[in-house]
């Protein structure tokens, strides 16, 4: 692990004020985040997603162009911004990836096992879900985040998500709130939004899914939840399970209202 220049001392000495170093570092990092957002290759994932949306696949040799994301078969404009929501045909609350998985199994006739074989890609080979999520999310740019809240099943998903968010478990006794529960906290240089408040969750849900410059990969919300459980030292949540959709519902409903401005570009 390469040693980092004595940034703490240098900045504090320069700033001269106690505890100033955190503030200087914070503003500089925000400038960096703005710069990478301006010149991000995230568009390439959107383009690849566009081709996959209309690509015929599966035993039924069908595309996803008739998949109903909540606003009607094949309607993309603004659909992502209204997820997660309850779908009567599946009798379930679904987020984007859960709904895409539904369309892959129903419209394309693919088995759930085949469609979920590789849902988290890597630097060399991104997954279908990542490309599709980039493309579909991009079609909601400018729409206010308005996940489903009226249906009783949507209210139940929110409530379950809230409990999961605060439930401490596993060998390290962590809950999501252990890291995302107090303002102004950081893991290393990574700012931690308080995801149980609108101010903290709003900017997050308005920019996920997102391209991650540190490993040149596009990451989805299902991956984000999955990887948090890994770092909490928990066993693995099942992809597109009610647990993951409940958490996504809790975060999106808590942070609703901002105009969607993703897919984002992150560290």
């Amino acid at each position: 692990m390469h040693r980092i220049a004595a940034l703490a001392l240098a900045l504090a000495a320069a700033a001269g004020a106690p505890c100033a170093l955190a503030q200087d570092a914070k503003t500089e990092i925000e400038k960096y985040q703005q710069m990478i957002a301006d010149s991000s290759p995230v568009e390439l994932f959107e383009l690849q997603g566009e081709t996959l949306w209309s690509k015929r696949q599966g035993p039924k040799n069908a595309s996803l162009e008739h998949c109903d994301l909540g606003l009607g078969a094949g309607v993309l404009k603004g659909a992502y911004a209204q997820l997660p929501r309850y779908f009567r045909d599946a009798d379930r609350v679904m987020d984007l990836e859960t709904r895409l998985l539904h369309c892959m199994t129903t419209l394309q006739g693919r088995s759930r096992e085949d469609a979920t074989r590789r849902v988290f890609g890597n630097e060399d080979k991104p997954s279908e879900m990542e490309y599709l999520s980039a493309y579909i999310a991009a079609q909601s740019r400018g729409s206010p985040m308005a996940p489903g809240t009226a249906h009783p099943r949507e209210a139940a998903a929110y409530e379950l998500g809230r409990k999961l968010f605060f439930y401490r478990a596993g060998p390290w006794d962590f809950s999501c709130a252990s890291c995302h529960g107090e303002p102004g906290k950081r893991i290393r240089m990574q700012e931690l939004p308080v995801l149980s408040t609108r101010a903290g969750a709003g900017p997050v849900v308005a920019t996920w899914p997102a391209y991650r410059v540190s490993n040149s990969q596009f990451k989805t919300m299902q991956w984000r939840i999955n990887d948090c459980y890994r770092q909490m030292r928990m066993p693995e949540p099942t992809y597109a399970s009610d647990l993951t959709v409940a958490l996504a519902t809790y975060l999106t409903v808590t942070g609703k209202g901002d105009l969607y401005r993703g897919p984002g570009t992150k560290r």
Partner: protein
Amino acid sequence: MAEPMKIRATLKGDLAEVRVLMVHPMETGQRKDAEGRLVPAHFIQEVSVRLNGRSVLEGQISQAVSRNPVFSFRLKGVKAGDKLEIAWLDSKGERSQAEAAIA
């Protein structure tokens, strides 16, 4: 066939701000893949920008340019109808070329 390239130009008067997005792994030769095998070096070495068939910018780059490179250039004396061609050549001799007319 090489991956797609995306060109975007913004015209202000006769000055065009050109932003080009290229799909390329830009492997340094020091990265290990998921199975822990060293991925051999493979990166774009030459970039060329031509306006109406005339070279206006020639670049040589190394593996230290980020994956999926994003370049921005500025060209002056540009007007509607001009043809912009951008091409690259990489360390394996692979090429990609894209052209676009400034509407």
